[in-house]
């Protein structure tokens, strides 16, 4: 049995916030520091080792590329470019699903949220294709530090995508029942989930050039 907590749905006047909104921004702040640490490590490792971007001889032979070839050439820019567009599109559909609820249009909400989830799935499928392309050539995190960073950064990001997909899937599916009983609270939930989802998109916006283009 739980107690009635103030400002769960209504905003507190001096902060202009309801609890979960402040909560999710704080959580995102901690996530900035988490991904920040990963980026910082990438920078430190890459600038600390002159051979960071170069594929070692044995592996270059195995891959049938010339000696001195760079790891970044092993990544597919077109696939990642596509993935970037997918994620950006999912960001728009996410915010539109929230706007639909504010316009009291549940049908539109279902549409936009459904699209968001499809995009998320699509992102993971493309990611799986990318990963498989590496694994099938015996390219693992242990093969070299660039790949180690690549897999860790994209892997953690991917886990965040899956997490968002689970939450958004719940809100689209069984969780949407709350629209009938507590529409404002439900709208807030979608807003909060949206903030998280946009953050996931934001991380990718920095990940993409850092790993694939530079």
């Amino acid at each position, binding site marked *: *049995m*739980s*107690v*009635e*907590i*103030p*400002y769960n*749905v209504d905003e*507190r006047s001096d*902060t202009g*916030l309801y*609890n979960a909104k*402040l*909560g999710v921004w*704080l*959580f995102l*702040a*901690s*996530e900035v*520091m*988490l991904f*920040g*640490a*990963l980026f*910082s*490590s990438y920078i*430190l*490792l890459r600038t*600390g*080792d002159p*051979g*960071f971007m170069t594929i*070692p001889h044995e592996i270059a032979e195995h891959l049938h590329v010339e000696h001195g070839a760079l790891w970044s050439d092993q990544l597919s820019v077109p696939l990642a470019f596509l993935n970037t567009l997918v994620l950006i599109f999912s960001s728009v559909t996410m915010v539109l699903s929230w706007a639909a609820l504010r316009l009291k249009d549940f049908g539109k909400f279902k549409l936009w949220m459904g699209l968001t989830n499809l995009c998320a799935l699509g992102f993971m499928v493309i990611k799986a294709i990318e990963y498989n392309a590496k694994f099938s050539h015996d390219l*693992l*995190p*242990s*093969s*070299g*530090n660039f790949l*180690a*960073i690549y897999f*860790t950064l994209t892997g*953690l990001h991917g886990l965040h995508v899956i997490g968002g997909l689970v939450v958004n899937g719940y809100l689209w599916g069984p969780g949407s029942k709350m629209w009938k*009983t*507590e529409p*404002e609270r439900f709208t807030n939930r979608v807003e909060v989930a949206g903030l998280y989802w946009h953050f996931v998109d934001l991380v990718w916006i920095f990940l993409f050039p850092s790993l694939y283009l530079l």
Partner: protein
Amino acid sequence: MSVLETHAEEADDHGHEHHEEGFLRKYVFSQDHKVIGIQYGLTALCFMLFGFFLMLLMRWQLAYPGQPIPIVGGLLGDANAPGGIMLPEFYNQLGAMHGTIMVFLAVVPLAVGAFGNYVVPLQIGAPDMAFPKLNMMSYWVYAVGGIVMFASFFVPGGAANSGWTSYPPLSVTATTGQTWWLVGMVFLITSSLLGSVNFIVTIVQLRVKGLTWMRLPFFVWSQLVTAFLLLLAFPPLEAAGFFQLLDRVAGTSFFMPSGLVVSGEVVEAAGGGSPLLWQHLFWFLAHPEVYVLILPALGIVAEVIANNTRKPLWGYKSMVYAIGFLGFMSFIVWAHHMFMTGMGTTLSNFFQITTMIISIPSVVVLSALFISLWGGSIRFNTPMLFALAFLPMFGIGGLTGLPLGLAPTDIHLHDTYYVIGHFHYVVAPGTIFALFAGIYYWFPKMTGRKMNEMLGKLHFYPSFIAINCIFMPMFIQGLAGVSRRLYDGGMQYSHAQPVLEWNQFMSIAAFSLAVFQIPFVINLFWSAKKGKKVGANHWQATTLEWSAAPSPPIAHGNFEKTPVVYRGPYEYSPPEHPRGFMPQNATSAEGDS
């Protein structure tokens, strides 16, 4: 929300009220911050006892190296202590786990998880924390992390043995226990992150009417700053933890340099990694972490001193600004733990300067607390004794930090017993004494009974003497150059010979300290059942947990009526009522002395 829906909810609530909450729901998976606070408290105290026991084992070895450990020697197993004689490998496990357990499983969960959880909602007039379910999850994730850490002693090779600092490449090539340590840390960090979000939202959003920022009890301020430190400083360690896990389990080389040779064998790894990267990420957390260790203690001491001097805190505003500044600065001093890593002078200068600057807010707070005593009608009850002792102990801890924060002197003192003396002074007779003060102080609120004063004094005085006898000689040993983490306490080194005799002295003091915790344990459990019953405001205090809630507070919602605040937190002996006090929510003065 429509009127119909509100009533439907109320009817639902009434419906639920008719069901008796099952034992599991009420005591195990509770969402009530008070129950969760006590869960944290009891769990943390158990871990503190365990960590204390690990230290006793170490101190036996240091005093009597190579001698069979009495009583428990035979129980430790042949892998750790064949014939009861401690192996160096086991000593290393004890060292690494004593630190880990005390910091992450005992002190912080007690200071933040227990006291923060229990007291903060009450002090701000809230019915509970902002996210009760999240609160419950925080506790259980901590508990799982704790179990993982404890279980690591029983895996082949034993627990983590690369220091609580887990520096690679040693930690990457260490036994299985290190992997368990990393997994345990991921759980603990997650618990901490969930908790810190909860604390900040609660304090920002759930303050009652009239409770403006500058009317907050100092304890709440200290918990707010602490929560921000945990929120922003822990994630880099989580990242580092993942990296080290991958290095150990997936063969990556984040921290593994090229061409590493261990025990004559070339390590099979791609190389190109940086051991220093771990140190940066680790200390980025671990420095703010030490302020996490001290801030709640400062908060508790402030409450107890204001209450037992019967006058307002001197310099409340300065104290608030000081800890805000302290919190900010704590993020930019971390590399003073790394002066010996070949750092360039420019950056070394930067970190020395920031480290010197960060000592200022601590001095402000300590001075304000000292000055608060001036002219007070001091009541020397047990919580006050611990709070008073905290002040000079924290002073010694802080002062001994100065030569460590300056690179030239740190060259001589780094990794010696001087460091161990320094940080133990701040945490042991510092924070832990403050936590004892908190237990004696808030026990009446939690149970409606008081703890026994005689047993309390029997706990305090000998503990105070013993604890100083343990840690003061460490400065002597450190100045002589005795390194830390030596399983024989320096016996093999000629420069340690003149100061070796202190080992026995310190160990006997440690065993004595153990004995005098017994009155505390007896007091805690006996008083909970048989202690003298007391009213809602046993200490005649001004803050809301005392003046607006019964002892113990109402199970769901804390207060019979939501309080409204009219004044600051420490209106003791106000001019219009010189022998009384004005609680924050009162419309007229109370008390008579």
